[in-house]
Structures are given as C-alpha cells and as structure tokens.
C-alpha cells in the first residue's frame, strides 16, 4: 500500500479482528444489496425504456415478494445485531486482573496515572499482551477516548467514571484521539498510545520513576483529608471500616443494596448523602470541590487496595446484580 495513502486502520488489539470481521460482513452484504439495487435500476431502465417498451404492464404488487424483502433483511439484520452485541459486551466487560490506568480528560489534554504511580500527559505506555483497563473521568466537559488501532472508544464524562479496556497485540505507536467535541482545541486533544515489549515497558516504568504508587498517594490523602478520623480499621469509627468494602454489595439504610464500585466510592466522597450505609448516620461531609479529579482517583485506588488480598490481582467481585439499581 502507498505510504501516504493508507486505506485501512492498523489492527493492534485482540478485539480489532472481531470488529473488522463484522465490518467486512456488513460491507459484503451492503455491497450485495447496493449492487443489486443499482443493477436492477439499470437493467429495468434500459430494458423498459419508453422507446422500446411503450406500454407499461400494470402490476398491483405481490405479497410473497413483500414478505421476502421484509423477512430476509430482517433475518440478516438479526445476525448483525447478535454479532455486534457480542463484541460490545466483550468490550464492556474487562477481564479480571487487568492492569489499571487512571485517565483524566480535560480541555484539552489527557492525563494518565499508572497504578505504580507514573504519570504521563498525552502519552500512554502499555505493555503488549496485557489487558489494560482504563478508569476515566473528565474534569470539565465530555471527552472521548478513542484509539482507532484498538477499535475502542468510550466517552469520558464529568461527574462519574467510565471505563474501557483493550489488550494490545502489536508493538508500535498509535493515535489517541479525543472523539467527542469538547471545544476550541478538540482536534489537538490527541496523543499516542505506545505499545511496548514487556521488558521495555518495565524499563520505562523504572526510568520514569514515581513518587509513590497510586494507592500510597491515596493513603496519604486519606490521612490529610481527615478521612481516617472516622474511617478506622476497627469497629470504633464513626464511619464504616473500609477494609474489604470495595467490590462487595453494600446494604443501604433504605433497604437497597448496591455494589461498591468506583462510581460508588466516588459518590460516597463527593455526595455522601446520596446513599447512606445501613447502620450509620449521614454525618460524612461532602468533599465536593476539595479534591481534584486526580486525588479522587488516588483515593479510589487506595480504597480499592484495601479490598485486595494480594497486590496486583484486583479482586473481581462478581456479586449478583442488585435488585433495585440506581443511577451512578
């Protein structure tokens, strides 16, 4: 292919093939129908042109034909639907044990923070072959994290976390785009995802250095902000003991249960009144406006780490879906 005119995006993730596969199927079916329609129009238009076919033959319609061209496209569509949904659900369900990176989008840059504490701006280094899960939120407007080579994309919202995962399968440097219009420099909110061999990645990590891992930073904040005064590691605190909370179902005082995921912790910190843990009084103050998006992520990472028996193995809790659910 010409160097200046690539016509197809690179495939650098485990999922890319599936998306392309469905795309090719869609392309094939569409090409078939488009050519069919074009061909029929052309043939009819020539064959029955006025000069050779002066008298039209009136035809009312045909029920079998109508049924055929209702049901056949419908059947085909169901295939698209099923396959497309399968891919989507895979995309929505990050595998257990993924390496986590926290992402903050802001006008107009991407900030990354690895669990091990390394920070990057507009560049994301990841090792090949490893599942990477991004926990993302925005400091201002809606952005969108998009890596064409991985065929993944997710909006990055203010006020809540969204996630996205991929497993890079090819080393190289790939485009990272902000794909949701976000103001003046939307088109410059771009960066690179750099996929490295694991060894190189380790080297990069250590060269980069960090002041403490993310949970460590979170722990510090936990002390600084005074969380520790209420949340103690025994049963004496005014607030619940946060050990082991993350990923578990939490019983609320109005009888509902919710799973303590990242968004729950986030809400607990910024808007503690929205969901009250059963057996406690709503005395926790709101930290809205006092913690930056990054600090919030550190706190979340810390609270998450409190629930993890072994480090580096994020405890995937697949508690059954709560009956009554709630917007995050």
């Amino acid at each position, binding site marked *: 292919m010409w160097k200046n005119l690539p016509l197809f995006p690179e495939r650098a993730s485990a999922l890319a093939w599936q998306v392309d596969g469905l795309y090719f199927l869609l392309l094939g079916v569409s090409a078939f129908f488009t050519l069919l329609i074009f061909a029929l129009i052309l043939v009819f238009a020539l064959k029955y042109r006025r000069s050779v076919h002066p008298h039209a033959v009136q035809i009312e319609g045909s029920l079998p034909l109508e049924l055929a061209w209702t049901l056949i496209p419908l059947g085909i569509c169901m295939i698209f639907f099923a396959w497309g949904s399968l891919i989507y659900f895979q995309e929505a369900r990050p595998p257990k044990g993924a390496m986590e990176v926290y992402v903050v989008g802001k006008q107009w840059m991407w900030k990354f923070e690895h669990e091990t504490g390394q920070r990057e701006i507009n560049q994301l280094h990841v090792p090949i072959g490893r599942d990477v899960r991004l926990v993302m939120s925005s400091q201002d407007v809606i952005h969108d994290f998009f890596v064409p080579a991985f065929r993944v994309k997710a909006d990055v919202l203010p006020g809540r976390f969204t996630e996205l995962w991929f497993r890079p399968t090819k080393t190289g440097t790939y485009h990272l785009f902000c794909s949701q219009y976000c103001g003046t420099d939307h088109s410059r909110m771009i960066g690179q995802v750099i996929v490295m061999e694991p060894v190189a990645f380790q080297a990069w990590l250590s060269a980069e250095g960090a002041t403490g891992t993310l949970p460590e930073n979170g722990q510090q904040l936990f002390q600084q902000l005074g969380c520790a005064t209420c949340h103690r590691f025994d049963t004496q605190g005014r607030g619940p003991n946060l050990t082991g909370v993350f990923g578990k179902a939490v019983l609320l005082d109005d009888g509902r249960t919710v799973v303590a995921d990242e968004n729950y912790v986030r809400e607990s910190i910024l808007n503690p009144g929205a969901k009250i843990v059963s057996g406690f*009084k709503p005395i926790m103050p709101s930290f809205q406006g006092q913690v930056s998006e990054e600090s919030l992520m550190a706190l979340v990472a810390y609270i998450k780490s409190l629930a993890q028996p072994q480090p580096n193995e994020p405890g995937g809790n697949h508690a059954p879906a709560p009956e009554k659910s709630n*917007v995050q």
Partner: protein
Amino acid sequence: MATSDIQVAEHALQHHFADMEQQQETSTFGMWMFLVTEIMFFGGLFCAYLVYRASYYQAFVEGSQKMNIWLGATNTAVLICSSLSMALGVRAAQMGKPKLMAVLLLITIVLGCGFLGIKAVEYHEHWVNHEFPGPNFHFETGDPAHPATDPVHTEIYFSLYWAMTGLHALHMVIGVGLVTWIIIAGLGGAYSRAYFTPVENVGLYWHFVDLVWIYLFPLLYLISKKHGG
C-alpha cells in the same frame, strides 16, 4: 335555529370549508392536535423529573417537604373550580347565551388569577428561603435532627419545581388572556348556537392546563412526609 344564528355561522364559515360541520370538527381536531404537542412539551420535563426522582429519591423527599401542601391543595381546588365554571361557560355558549357565558368565564378568570396569586405567594416564600436554584441556592431541612442529606440533588428538585410550575403558570397567564378575548368577542356577538368553536377550543386549553396541575401537585408536593433516613 334562529336566522340570526345562521347568519353568525355563515359569517364565520371560511371559504375553504364545505360547511360548518367540517369547519367545526376540523378546528376542534386541530386543537386536540395542539394539545398533543403540549403534552409532549411538558412530557420532556416530566421525563427529567422521573429520571431524577428515581435516582435521588431522598433528595426529592426533602425538597418536597419545603412545599406548602395547604397552598398547593387550595390551588388544586381553585383550578378545579375554574374548570367547572369554564365547562359551564362553554355550555352557555353552546346554548347561545353570551351574557351567561361572559359571567361564567369571568369567574374562571378570577379563579385563574387567584391561582396565580397563591402561586406568587409560594414563589416569594421559596425565593426568600434561597430555594431558587443557582448561586444563591441554600438548602436546609430546618430540622437539626435531620440535616439535609443530599442538598446537591435537592437543588435539582428545585430546578424542576421552578421549571415545571413556571411553565405551567405561563400557560395560565396565556389562558387568562385567551378567556378575556373570548369574553370580549362573545359580548360582541361573535358566537351563537351554531358557531362557538373558539369558546370550545379555549375551554379545551383551560382544562388541559388544569390537567397538568393535577399531576404536578402530587408529584411535587406530596412525595413523602417521612423525614430523612
């Protein structure tokens, strides 16, 4: 039917209709279509209400406890009465009694203004209590034993409260204007037993506005009397 009635009717027949029946049915149907658009217009707000109430129930409860149920209930009653006088007014028009119609519609207007007056009192109260969303918003339950649990989302409750009741009040104001117009035209002899479509349509509008309030009242005022927690 009296000849004068027929004259009024013929005068009112627009050129593109075949007869009065077609014209009357057409404009009533048009009015209903318009009310459909009104339903969808309010529907957007109700949808927002539904979403947030489902998500932030407690905050909505606390917000609703700031409502004065008695004023709200009185206003409901006032509107229902105004609907009755409106219905009777339309009936008077149907029977070709413009004076009676004018009296009944005047009662409607008075009741409508009464509604707006009471609403203004409530608005004033909320305003002084900083219960208007925006920079000045400040929310406390007023009960030290139960501090506000979720003031952020209570502000959304108030945003919706102001938006929904404000839009409703705007419709009331328009309604009062329309009824005034009908009274003046009616006294001028515009309507008769054969032609009273505008009266009927304004009536439909008025009842619709009443209908919206019938839903607004329980949704905004009567969420729950239970205190936080």
